[in-house]
């Protein structure tokens, strides 16, 4: 299967062919990344799902041991799509994909995503997962530049990475959600 066949089957109406296409997308590789991200913005739920799952297959295939060059190529293409400003739903998925296979090259683009209130939690998660000094540096820089209400979230990631952040609170145990249900279910 090549990219054209993959995209055609995913966009098509034949459910069985679509399923076979996304399930076997892994080896199609980096060439299919950008076309799939376009289909991921489809208004048809099942088409969008199939494209997303196909791209995940490519990411996980590229992430196998010994395929570092493939992973780097897929990562680079994902970053290019991310930098072009895709719809939020696509950017979300890309951030999580990068969290699995990307290296230093993804840290600055993900750092820029921390400025988006809609996407920053996905970017923070990815930066927390990507090992190395660069991702740590981006998180440390974000701690000072982030708005005060978001600093506790950044601090959580830094603590997970072994950094002591004593001056930023963690509100994880602070209740906030109110119910209208009274005692005894009244």
């Amino acid at each position, binding site marked *: 299967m090549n990219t054209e066949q993959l995209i055609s089957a995913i966009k098509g109406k034949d459910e069985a062919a679509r399923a076979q296409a996304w399930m076997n997308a892994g080896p199609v590789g980096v060439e299919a990344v950008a076309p799939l991200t376009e289909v991921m913005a489809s208004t048809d739920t099942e088409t969008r799902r199939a494209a997303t799952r196909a791209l995940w297959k490519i990411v*996980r295939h590229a992430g*196998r041991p010994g395929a570092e060059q493939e992973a780097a190529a897929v990562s680079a293409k994902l970053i290019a799509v991310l930098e072009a400003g895709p719809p939020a739903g696509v950017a979300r998925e890309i951030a999580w994909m990068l969290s699995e296979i990307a290296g230093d090259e993804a840290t600055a683009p993900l750092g820029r995503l921390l400025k988006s209130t809609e996407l920053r939690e996905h970017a923070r998660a990815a930066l927390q997962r990507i090992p190395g000094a660069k991702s740590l540096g981006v998180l440390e820089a974000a701690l000072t530049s982030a708005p005060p209400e978001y600093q506790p979230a950044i601090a959580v990631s830094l603590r997970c990475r072994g950094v002591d952040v004593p001056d930023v609170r963690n509100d*994880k145990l602070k209740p906030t959600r109110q119910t*209208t249900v009274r005692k005894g279910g009244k």
Partner: protein
Amino acid sequence: MGQQKRSFRRRDFLKGTVAAGAAVGFPYYVPSGVLAQPGRPGANECITVGFIGVGGRGRGLMHEMLGGLCKKGQARVVAVCDVDEKRLATAAREAGPETDAYRDYRYLLERKDIVAVVNGTPDHWHAVQTVHAAQTGKHVYVEKPACCTIEEGKAMVAAGRDNKVSIQVGSQGRSQPEAYLAHRYLVNGMIGRVNHVECFHYPSPIDDKPVPDSDPPPDLDWDFWLGPLPWRPYNARYLPGTFRWLLESGGGQIRDRGAHVMSCAMWWMGADGTGPVTVEATGTSPPKGLWDAAVNMHVTYTFKNPDWVMTWTQAPDAGPRGEPRKAGEDKITRDGYGAIYHGDKGTMTHWGGDGGTWVERKVREWVPPAGAKDVYKSPGHYEDWFEGIKTGKKTIMNIEAAVGVANLTILGNLSFILGRKLKWNQAKQEIEGDEEARRMMSRPQRYPYVL
């Protein structure tokens, strides 16, 4: 069994205390709290309990406690909590007129009068809420599987240990009467040395009625339901109950029922605290719809020193159907899952492994000869937990054991997702030689729903 010994010692102590009281003219009644160990309720103390997540399974757990330990005066349900207002109102009504209702479990955790919590929320909340409860000093009963990621499991173990609370995980198969019989049968070598535990289960379902994303229903706090999970739009196929068929929140049959069947296996094999050296899964994904957990699946877990293999097979025709039972015997109501134990002198089959655990006739009819080994017999899963709360003894499905079982299911799914064999280092609690898989040992959580 260490647990039995500790339990007996406590009873001996109780007997001695009561006898001493009688000798000096005190009544036999032992007041609440008198025998309490530091930080633990007394032997006769009624334990105040809060329930977090009172929809499907959580509601069932609540009724089990209301009809059992509450009726006996050993427990009192004082608060319930849910992110769905309708379910919350129903549960609060059913629990009684004095029961407080909360949407946010953290209000419940703030209450000093609540000693213990029962957590029946979807899987993606188990670790965070267990850790938070432990950090506020509550004893915890949490539904299985314990955790969704390797790192969540480590945090749960640490929280239980550091805060000295009793955690029981809801793999209640270990507490079933016929599980005791099976365990005793195996420990006495009736099928010889077991070299293969063949777990079987029917497939996970396919979402054959997919729907587009939509606005959540007005009674549901969707954002709070997601909690630690990455945010995404609501879709009606996520819940109720169907979260089980998504890898991130439920993980499919291998995590739902694997946490039962494999729990029995690890307990009966004396393998708690051990782990496989390799895990290799194959399977089929659902062709469409929201759910993505494997439909059919085969996983091989290879253990070393001692050498044995556990397999998990999800398929329409997996495993034997339950054997017929005589009138008056406990009927096998779920024979679509269980395990066959292959030993060098024979086999043993059980069905179920959860609240219903059944074992084949030869095991039930086996009469232990003089000198046969005995094994721990749970007084019931809640009751065993309450003993843990009051005495500090390890519960039958303690958090260390439960995380070990959950890790098996997590590793099985990871191998399926990645399409490759994984190497597991039990001592380090790490996947080795696969950077992507290593990163997937954790899933960063959405703030503030963090460990």
